C-alpha cells in the first residue's frame, strides 16, 4: 500500500490518464497544424481544462475532493515554475488555476500532472466537473462518514462518460458527510448529503438544481434517502433525464436548475425515478467489494489519542496574542483527541485571495510532511488545510506557516475573502475582483479588530457568473460595468451553512470602485452598533433588516 491516506491511482487509472494525455497531444498538434478550426478545437481543449483568457491560456487542474499529498503539491509548484509564472490560484471548486500557460506546452504540463496521478480532465466543458467535498473530510469531529470515498466513485464513473460528455451545460456535484455542510451542497447541480436514518442506516439525501450564476437557486430534495450502493444508478438516471430534457436553446437556461424550475421538482422526481427503475439492478449497483476496494484507500492515518492540554501551547497563548487568535480562528477540532485541523490562510493582508507562489506551495508541502501525514486539503474558501496536526505541534506549525505568510489568524473573518480572478484575468468579467479584495483586506488588516467583528464572509465576483459566490456571502460584492466604469453591487444576508443556505438581497444602487471599502466599513459599523450579545453580522442583519445598513452606506458613499 502506498503511504497516502486517500485514493491513489492504480494501473488502470494511470493508463487512462496517460492515454488521455496522448489524445490531447494529438489534438493540439492537429490544431497547430491547422487541421482543426478553433470552433472544433475549443471544446476539446476545454474538456482538458484549457481556457483562453485575456492574457494567455489558463489551465484548470482538478484536485479531487480537495485532497493533495505533499508530493502532488510539490509537483504543482514545479509545473507552475516550469510552464507558468511560478504561482497558482486555488479556486472555490477545489481546483488550481495556472493563468499563463502556452498551448504548445499544455500537453507537457498535463503529462507532468499525470506523473503524480493528477489531471485536468473535465474541469471545463459541458460535462460532469470535479466532484467536491468537505475539506475537513476524514478528520472532522462531526463527520458521519468520509464523503471522499463516494467522490472517488463518482470521479471514476464520470471520467470520459460516453453518454454525458455533451450535456446541455456543465454539471457540478458536491458531497458532504457531516451535518455541518462545508461543501455547499445546496448550490450544486446535484448535492449529496450523507445522513443516518431512524434505522441507523447511512444513505444520501439527493439535492438537485442548486446553483449560483445569473439565476441563483437553492437546490431541492429529489430523494430523501438513497441507499449508498444505489448512488451511481441514481446519478446515471438523473443525468440521463437532464441530457434528454435540459434546455439547449439558450445557454443561460441550460443548467439543470432551470429544468427543475420549469417542470417542478415533483415531475423531475417522477422522470428520474422512472429512469432509475430500469437501472437500479444494473451493473451500476455498487457491490460491497467494489465499495471496499475504494474505501480501503481512505483508511485514516494511525493517529493515537494524545494529550489535549499542552503546556507549551498554553504558554505561547499567553505570550503571543496572534497565536492565541490563530488558535481560535484557524484551528478546528479533530475527531481524534489531542489533534487538530489547521487552516493555512491564503489571505494574508493585501494579498490576492487564493494565490500561492511555487515556494509557498513547497513550504506547505514541507509542513505537511513534518506535521500532517503529508496531506493537504484545498477548501472552497480558497485556503489550504493541514488535516491531521497534533496539538503539541501547533506552535511549530504556526511558526512555519508564519514564515510563509500563511499564519494570518483570519479564517472566517472579514479578510478571509473569496474572490474570483475578475477583469485582471477573465475574458468574461465586467470588473476587477482581486484589487477590491486587496483594498478591503488592507483596510481591515488589524487582527484584534477582525476578531472583534467576528465571523463575516465577504465574497466577490467580477460578473454575474458568480464564480466568487457573491450570492451566498454575508456581504456579497458583484462587479458590474456601466458605460465602461467599474461599479460594485452589494448584497447582504447570503449564507451557505446547511439549513441556512440563503441568497443575499441587493442593498441598493451599485457603488463606484473607490467607495467599496467605505461602504463595507459602513456596513460593519452599523453591525457593531446594533449587535446583540453573541450575534454575528448576518444574525444582526436578519434581526434588524436592511434599512439601517442601507441608510448608513448611502449616507457615506
Amino acid at each position: 500500500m502506498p503511504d497516502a491516506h486517500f485514493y491513489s491511482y492504480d494501473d488502470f487509472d494511470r493508463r487512462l490518464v496517460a492515454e488521455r494525455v496522448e489524445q490531447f497531444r494529438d489534438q493540439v498538434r492537429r490544431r497547430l497544424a491547422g487541421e482543426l478550426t478553433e470552433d472544433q478545437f475549443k471544446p476539446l481543449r476545454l474538456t482538458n481544462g484549457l481556457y483562453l483568457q485575456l492574457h494567455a491560456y489558463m489551465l484548470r487542474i482538478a484536485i479531487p475532493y480537495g485532497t493533495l499529498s505533499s508530493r502532488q503539491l510539490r509537483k504543482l509548484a514545479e509545473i507552475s515554475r516550469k510552464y507558468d509564472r511560478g504561482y497558482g490560484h486555488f479556486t472555490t471548486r477545489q481546483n488550481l488555476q495556472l493563468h499563463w500557460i502556452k498551448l504548445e506546452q499544455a500537453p507537457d504540463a498535463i503529462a507532468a500532472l499525470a506523473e503524480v496521478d493528477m489531471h485536468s480532465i473535465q474541469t471545463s466543458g459541458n460535462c460532469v466537473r470535479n466532484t467536491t467535498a468537505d475539506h475537513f473530510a476524514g478528520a472532522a469531529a462531526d463527520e458521519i462518514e468520509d464523503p471522499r470515498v463516494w467522490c472517488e466513485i463518482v470521479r471514476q464513473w464520470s471520467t470520459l462518460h460516453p453518454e454525458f460528455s455533451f450535456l446541455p451545460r456543465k454539471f457540478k456535484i458536491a458531497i458532504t458527510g457531516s451535518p455541518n455542510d462545508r461543501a455547499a451542497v445546496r448550490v450544486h447541480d446535484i448535492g449529496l448529503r450523507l445522513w443516518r436514518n431512524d434505522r441507523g442506516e447511512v444513505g444520501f439525501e439527493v439535492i438537485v438544481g442548486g446553483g449560483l450564476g445569473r439565476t441563483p437557486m437553492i437546490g431541492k430534495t429529489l430523494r430523501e434517502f438513497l441507499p449508498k450502493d444505489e448512488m451511481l444508478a441514481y446519478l446515471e438516471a438523473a443525468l440521463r433525464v437532464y441530457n434528454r430534457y435540459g434546455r439547449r436553446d439558450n445557454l443561460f437556461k441550460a443548467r439543470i436548475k432551470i429544468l427543475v424550475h420549469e417542470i417542478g421538482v415533483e415531475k423531475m422526481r417522477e422522470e428520474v425515478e422512472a429512469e432509475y427503475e430500469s437501472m437500479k439492478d444494473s451493473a451500476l449497483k455498487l457491490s460491497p467489494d467494489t465499495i471496499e476496494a475504494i474505501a480501503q484507500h481512505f483508511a485514516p492515518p494511525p493517529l493515537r489519542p494524545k494529550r489535549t492540554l499542552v503546556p507549551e501551547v498554553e504558554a505561547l497563548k499567553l505570550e503571543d496574542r496572534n497565536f492565541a487568535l490563530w488558535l481560535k480562528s484557524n484551528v478546528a477540532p479533530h475527531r481524534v483527541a489531542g489533534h487538530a485541523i489547521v487552516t493555512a490562510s491564503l489571505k494574508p493582508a493585501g494579498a490576492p485571495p487564493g494565490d500561492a507562489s511555487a515556494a509557498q506551495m513547497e513550504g506547505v508541502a514541507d509542513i505537511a510532511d513534518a506535521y500532517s501525514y503529508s496531506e493537504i486539503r484545498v477548501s472552497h474558501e480558497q485556503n489550504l488545510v493541514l488535516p491531521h496536526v497534533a496539538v503539541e505541534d501547533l506552535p511549530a506549525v504556526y511558526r512555519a506557516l508564519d514564515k510563509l505568510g500563511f499564519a494570518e489568524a483570519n479564517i472566517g473573518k472579514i479578510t478571509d475573502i473569496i474572490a474570483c480572478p475578475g477583469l485582471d484575468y477573465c475574458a468574461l468579467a465586467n470588473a476587477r475582483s482581486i484589487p477590491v479584495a486587496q483594498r478591503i483586506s488592507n483596510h481591515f488588516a488589524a487582527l484584534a479588530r477582525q476578531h472583534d467583528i467576528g465571523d463575516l464572509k465577504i465574497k466577490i465576483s467580477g460578473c454575474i457568473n458568480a464564480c466568487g459566490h457573491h450570492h451566498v456571502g454575508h456581504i456579497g460584492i458583484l462587479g458590474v460595468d456601466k458605460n465602461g466604469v467599474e461599479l460594485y453591487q452589494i448584497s447582504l444576508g447570503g449564507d451557505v451553512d446547511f439549513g441556512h443556505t440563503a441568497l443575499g438581497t441587493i442593498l441598493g444602487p451599485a457603488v463606484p470602485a473607490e467607495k467599496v471599502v467605505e461602504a463595507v466599513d459602513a456596513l460593519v459599523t452599523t453591525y457593531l452598533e446594533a449587535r446583540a450579545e453573541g450575534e454575528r453580522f448576518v444574525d444582526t442583519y436578519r434581526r434588524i433588516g436592511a434599512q439601517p445598513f442601507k441608510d448608513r452606506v448611502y449616507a457615506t458613499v
Partner: protein
Amino acid sequence: MPLFREGAATPIANDGPAPVPLADWLQDRHGAAVALANTDDVNCLQPHLADLSLIVLHFPKFSDGRAYSQARILRERMGYGGEMRATGGVLQDQLPFLLRCGFDSFESDQKGFGEALMRARTLFSVVYQPTEDGRPTASQLRLVSRRIMATAAE
C-alpha cells in the same frame, strides 16, 4: 455524406434504402430504416424493433449530446441489435464515446475520419462505465484481480 463502418478506413457505399423520418415511418411502417430527431422518444419503437435494420440518430451539432442517450436506451434497454448510425455533426474526436454507446456506422465529411475510426477503439484501454459494448470496467477488473490475489493467498 461519406459513410463509414468499423473495419475500413475508406467510406463504404451509401446506397441502402433511404431512412424514413420517424413520424412517417410509424404511419405505414414501410421499409426497415428509420431516422430519428434527437427529441424523438425512442420508446415508441419498442414494438417494431424486429422490423428495423437501420436506425439513424442525429447530432444537430456535435456538442448536442442527446442522441447518446437515445442510443443507449435502444441498445441496452430495448435490445436493438441492428445497425445504428450517427449523422449530422459527427467528428472523429467523438468516436470513443459513440462506439461505447452502440453506434456502428457514421456519416462524416471530416478529413481523416476513416483513419481515426480504425484507431478509435484503441485510444483508451481502460473504461470506467458499464455500457452495451460489454467492455469490463476498471472496477470489475480490480475485483477479479483482488479475487485472484485472495485465492493465491489461501
